């Protein structure tokens, strides 16, 4: 063995390399089979980022199909409910540059919740059939109502209503949802008193 190596160093090195290549190739092949991932993991990850409003504004019948389309190379800026934050997250995930929202599909709006004016509802069940997340309760000829906590604000129930009794009520900021905003650069809009630097003037 040693003799062979010292006699034919080049051949020995070659053999060693080939051998290594074969071993690692086998290892990789085994790993590929053993740790095979189910489904389309990238589409799942994209779907996880999309807002799940299921409104179809992106031109797909729901978020999942759009996620699959993105995985297949469609632009990442077609989801208005997700808006800038979603585009950023998608850009991060896919390692591409964030692009502004494609206005053709709609603008980023304040999130709204559907509200049925119950005394005008005729109980036609049309809105129930339209709601992608089963957020409307009701039965034929009975008054219908929206479970506000489940409504995604997708707008889809508004159009089918024959008596036009569904309003989309924008969700105003309240005490629970209020939070500090990022300060605007170069503007002294800061209410934090934390920069009391002028020690001379302070008594």
């Amino acid at each position, binding site marked *: 063995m040693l003799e062979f190596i010292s006699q034919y160093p080049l051949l020995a090195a070659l053999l060693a390399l080939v051998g290594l290549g074969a071993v690692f190739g086998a290892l990789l092949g085994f790993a590929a089979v053993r740790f095979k991932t189910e489904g389309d993991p990238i589409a799942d990850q994209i*779907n996880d980022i*999309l*807002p*799940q*409003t*299921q409104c179809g504004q992106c031109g797909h019948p*729901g*978020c999942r199909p759009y996620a699959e389309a993105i995985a297949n190379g469609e632009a990442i800026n077609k989801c208005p409910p997700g808006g800038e*934050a979603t585009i*950023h997250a998608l850009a*991060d995930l896919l390692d591409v540059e964030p692009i502004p929202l494609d206005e053709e599909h709609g603008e980023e709006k304040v999130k709204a919740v559907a509200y049925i004016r119950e005394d005008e509802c005729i109980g036609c069940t049309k809105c129930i059939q339209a709601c*992608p*997340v*089963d*957020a409307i309760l009701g039965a034929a000829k009975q008054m219908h109502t929206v479970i506000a906590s*489940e409504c*995604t604000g997708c707008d889809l129930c508004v159009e089918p209503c024959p008596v036009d009794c569904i309003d989309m009520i924008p969700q105003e*900021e*309240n*005490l629970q*949802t*209020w*939070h*500090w*905003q*990022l*300060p605007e*650069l*170069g*503007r*002294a809009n*800061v*209410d*934090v*008193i*934390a*920069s*009391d*630097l*002028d*020690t001379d*003037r*302070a*008594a």
Partner: protein
Amino acid sequence: MRKIFDFHGGIHPPENKRQSLGEPIRDAGIPGQLVIPLSQHIGAPSAPIVAVGERVLKGQVIAEAGGFVSVPQHAPSSGTVIAIEERPIPHPSGFRAPCVVIECDGRDEWLPHTGIDNYPGVSPSELLEHIREAGIAGMGGAGFPAAVKLRQKPGATVDTLIINGTECEPYITADDALMRERAADIIAGAEILRHIVGPAETLIGVEDNKPEGIAALRAAAGDSGIEVVEFPTKYPSGGEKQLIEILTGKQVPSGGLPADIGVVCQNLGTTVAVRDAILDGRPLISRITTITGEAVAHPGNYEVLLGTPISHLLELAGYDATRNNRLVMGGPMMGFTLTDTAAPVVKTTNCLLAPTEAELPTPPPAQACIRCGLCAEACPASLLPQQLFWFARGKEYEKLEEHNLFDCIECGACSWACPSQIPLVQYYRASKAEILQQRRDHDKSEQSRLRFEARQERLAREAEEKEAKRAARKKAAELKARQAATGAENEDPIQAAIERAKAKKAAQQQAAGSESEVDKLEQAVVTASKRLQTATAKLEQARAEGSDLVDALQTGVDKTRAKLEKAEQALADHRAAQGNGGALSTGAEAAPVDAAQAAIEKARAARAADADLSPRDKARKQLESLQQRLAKSEKRLADSRNAGEEDKIVEALEASVERLRDKIAATETELATHAAAENH
């Protein structure tokens, strides 16, 4: 002497505490109105239990705790509830929130209350219940319900109970005033907490800039075993984690709680409130608030009823609005600007700061970061503020979390240290809130996704069920058809004959042309005539009523009639065409060409006739036919005998005649019983 530790970073801003310590604590009195926000604490808002117009006594519960992490609210003075509505509250957003408004009667009448005489004999959990019912929430910081914080996980042991008397933020002296004037109460409160928590040691941590307070506390503590620990002044040593590190040298792990390392912390003001609740039965209805700043003439500490409008306090202190550039609730480092002086003092209002512009200048516009690293040096949480600043600007939330943004205690030390006047802490507050919001949104969207998928599944399942039902129906129909074909003998012979004839006819028609065409045309005629009937009926009705729809209906009837005629014509044409082929039945009236068909028709007619008869008539008819058959058979028998036919045939005929006679006899008795039945 106890070993004192140090924490990383920290700053030394001007203290500005002397101004408000010139005089003892003053009573702020009873204002005309008290406004009690339902949410003065962290956790669920409390739920009002009084009605508008109701008279309430001082100390009476006006709102119950709205959950486990929640506290009740009490009436701070006697009076009448005049409203439960949205009022301005002290909050950086400037929003309004639901409040109970009490119009005070000035009598300050107490609800009868008594303390617990011998609290060491009472179990900690019962004492905690008292603390909760007294509405006590942390009075130094965010207002976390004290009872929740003091409640221990089963099996956990507490080494150290720390009473936080640090009060490290500039200007604020509320706790200092308490130490000077109510040291005995503080010690009493600490003893109650010690009884509840059961720690190995109880410490009161105080910065060395409060020598009077420390002296008073030490005197009051005596040999109670409660140790008053003094340590060098540095901002923000009052941060819970920082204080724990100073006193014990232990660090609370990132994202962990003090309880994880066996420490429980309580604020000094809260300690006094606990004492009042347990020993006097007095709920949390007032607190000490510092009013200071150059824009007030009489800075100092005031004992204020909760719910007192801030404007009332400012008036007491001689506030000069013209000299004040902004009114701050809290200290200069962690406070926020108040937008409305109608907002009330709440459980967490430790200070009102009314500085002049010279005293607390509006921060100049921020400059670019020069990467000096002063912020990182100042940060007590050992973070990298300039890094966080970059990530916050780029909205790189993942990176922010990786850099432990959530360990930031929002102390503002970095902003204070920054030579470029970058409002760093503002970025962190905004980013933290944004991340929390995103987490909530993500939870919500996850829920939506599940609901969406559940719906998709449901729809698919429903479609499948429908399909399965349809398939089952189809199969059943096929099975029936097969049974009809194979098991025809076992069934009604006429039906079987019909089936056979049909099959035959179908076979014939397949050769001759399409039966379906005829069926279709027949169907068309039937429906058209039906429609005509209803249309005419309607027309008649309209005529009778003199409705103005008559014309419209008339055209409708005409049209339908035209259609009917057309359909009939089409059918006739088709039949004529098929008739040439000669293999078709052309309706019931047409001469039956098909023998099988004819037999079927006859049998059907007979059966139809039978069906209408009464049992007696049926029996009589049967008798008649039997008698005919008997006559025929007898004739046949006679013929055979005369013809001298084989014995076998004659015997057979005789037997059948015999059988017929029996049958006739049976039918006759049947007929008799029917007759008897009918005659009765």
